[in-house]
């Protein structure tokens, strides 16, 4: 049986979300933009989902824009702002490619982070001026789980770039953090359903009133002219159900998963020499999300490690995957100043709502053995 420890890549869809979306596929299938009773029934589902997402994200229902996933939400925030306002975009060096690539594409500015993976607020201030119209700082990093201090970021942004809106990619955050509170100062907030037990291909962007966006997709006027195209009603319903379940479970899930993660990380570190835990000093993981265990093994190549772990039914990841499935070197670890050779031996074990003690036990047995086998061959 597979031990799935790759929740930061994607999560199993919650049974409740599956149950919620099935009748939308077969019964409540009207087009929510239509004029008849079946259309209205679908639109009511969107209203309910919008209310749920607004509560989860600390926004008004009218500030929720449904998108085709986290990448689209990020692009809508970035391109939408720049298309409407012009100016310069700024982000951190550890953003997901969904933020980093569009900002680098338009020649934006990239701000460094400290070795623990937290944004350098002085460098941020230096990168800001009156020309900056968008600042994007993720809430939690997808490789290391390091949490960014958005309140402090917002203070710096308001002072040094008064014209800018603040965007946060909260795609990794909803399961583990109170996004409504932590991202309250952000004008734009991206989430993706499949990271919290919803289906793939659906997400949302919070657009608070300060933010003015030019749509990426025109036609149809859906989402108050901010995102054209018939809404993915089944996916949106499932996303909202997953979000509601996630929020209800969060008070118990965070300590439970955090304890599992600590047992996993501590156990591997106790069993293996030559291992470092990315961005963690003295095993203090309070600045990380509860689910992420990110390790670098000296003298090991990630691809070999993942291969052997898969043979032991452990499904894990290293850095970000490229389209071919090959592993690319991590820009996140590079930005944290991790030695390139050490970064080549990175392993991301990411836990989630469905992770059990048995999953952790399996990884605790498999990881030291695989590392040992690779080092013995080297």
């Amino acid at each position, binding site marked *: 049986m597979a031990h799935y420890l790759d929740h930061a890549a994607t999560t199993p869809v919650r049974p409740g979300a599956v149950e919620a979306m099935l009748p939308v596929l077969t019964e409540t299938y009207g087009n929510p933009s239509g004029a008849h009773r079946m259309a209205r029934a679908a639109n009511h589902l969107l209203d309910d989902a919008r209310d749920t997402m607004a509560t989860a994200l600390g926004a008004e229902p009218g500030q929720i824009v449904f998108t085709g996933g986290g990448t689209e939400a990020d692009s809508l925030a970035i391109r939408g702002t720049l298309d409407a306002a012009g100016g310069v975009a700024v982000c951190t060096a550890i953003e997901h490619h969904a933020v980093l690539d569009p900002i680098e594409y338009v020649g934006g500015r990239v701000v460094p982070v400290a070795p623990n993976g937290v944004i350098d607020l002085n460098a941020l201030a230096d990168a800001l001026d009156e020309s900056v119209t968008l600042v994007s700082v993720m809430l939690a990093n997808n490789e290391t789980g390091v949490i960014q201090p958005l309140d402090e970021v917002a203070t710096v942004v308001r002072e040094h770039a008064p014209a800018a809106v603040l965007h946060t990619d909260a795609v990794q955050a909803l399961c583990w953090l109170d996004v409504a509170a932590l991202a309250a100062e952000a004008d734009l907030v991206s989430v993706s359903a499949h990271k919290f037990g919803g289906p793939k291909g659906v997400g949302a962007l919070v657009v608070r009133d300060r933010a003015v966006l030019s749509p990426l997709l025109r036609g149809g006027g859906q989402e108050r002219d901010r995102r054209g195209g018939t809404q993915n009603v089944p996916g949106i319903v499932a996303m909202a159900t997953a979000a509601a379940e996630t929020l209800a479970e969060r008070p118990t899930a965070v300590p439970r998963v955090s304890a599992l993660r600590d047992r996993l990380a501590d156990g591997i570190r106790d069993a293996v020499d030559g291992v470092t835990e990315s961005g963690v000093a003295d095993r203090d993981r309070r600045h990380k999300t509860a689910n992420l265990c990110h390790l670098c093994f000296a003298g090991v190549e990630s*691809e070999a490690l993942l291969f052997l772990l898969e043979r032991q039914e452990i499904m894990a990841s290293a850095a970000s995957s*490229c*389209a071919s*499935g*090959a592993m690319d070197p991590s820009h996140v670890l590079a930005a944290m100043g991790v030695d390139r050779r050490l970064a080549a031996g990175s392993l991301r074990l990411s836990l989630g709502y469905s992770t059990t003690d048995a999953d952790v036990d399996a990884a605790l047995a498999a990881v030291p053995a695989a590392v040992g*086998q690779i080092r013995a061959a080297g």
Partner: protein
Amino acid sequence: MARVMVGMSGGVDSSVAASLLVDAGHDVVGVTLKLWGGESDSGCCSVSDVDDARRVARRLGIEHYVFNFGEDFDRFVVDPYVADHEAGRTPNPCVECNRHIKFDKLIRRADALGFATIATGHHARVVDDAGVRRIARGADHAKDQSYVLHMLGQSQLARLLLPVGDMTKDDVRARAADLDLITATKPDSQDVCFIHSEGGRAAFLGDRIPLRPARLVDGDGAEVGSVTSVELVTIGQRRGLNLGGDGGRRYVVDIDRRAGVVTVGPREDLLVEHQPLHDVAWSHQPVDGALTFQCSAHGTPRGGTVTADAETGVGLIAWDEPQPRVAEGQSIAFYTGDRVVGGATAAHR
């Protein structure tokens, strides 16, 4: 039955190689190497080739993995390729890829993962001559790739399978078609995998090093033309010089990069009695006496003998009859009959 890691480029040869290994009852895993991240269309590691390899592996019922060896490929193949051109040498990137990537890095990866045997889709055979393993020419002489495998030694040959070496290309394609593999009608790969066919070498090198023009002169020093980039000119080259037809066939016989002068002349001016070598390596023991030497991927083998210093790898071919000089940097494979017994790199005269 062995655990075999088969390199699958996404082409028809390695697809069929994998199918033969499965049929032989081996425990087979397919791997595609991602080597080049830049633009390319002629190569073997684009995303579409990875897709093809994955589809074939699925059809064959084997697991498929992608290994990113891009950093090593840059370091051992692409960077030296550029440096060689800059220094006036004529590199052989496919040979260097085999030497450093497929038959070193991949073998070490296979070791780490517990695979004693690796396989590729090369058209060549691994034979056992009384306990000594050799690369032998593939059954399809027109597609023979033994030349690019000349660097393999006993330790590598002991664990290498080349399943399509006994087949003709037509047989390979027919088998792929029988198995309904998506790669059955895919064209053969051409040229250097990391160079885009449109801009060619000139665009690739021009993005990385300064390319300088040169005058073309004949043996008397009279100017007969010019080239836009001396770095792209190779000893023995005849095509692409735009010399017109009046002077008979003329070849590049000398290149003075500093002065920006390329000398052309008749074929006789290229002929030499001896060819200096470096990096001479034997697949087993040094072989005295008559050998044949192949100096390019599909070149005609020429007769001669070779002497070499075992310590330094410096050597010399004595040709049976005068032969054209081999451009510095080119690989030369040594054969006894259809067996590869060693190889070397052409040195400056």
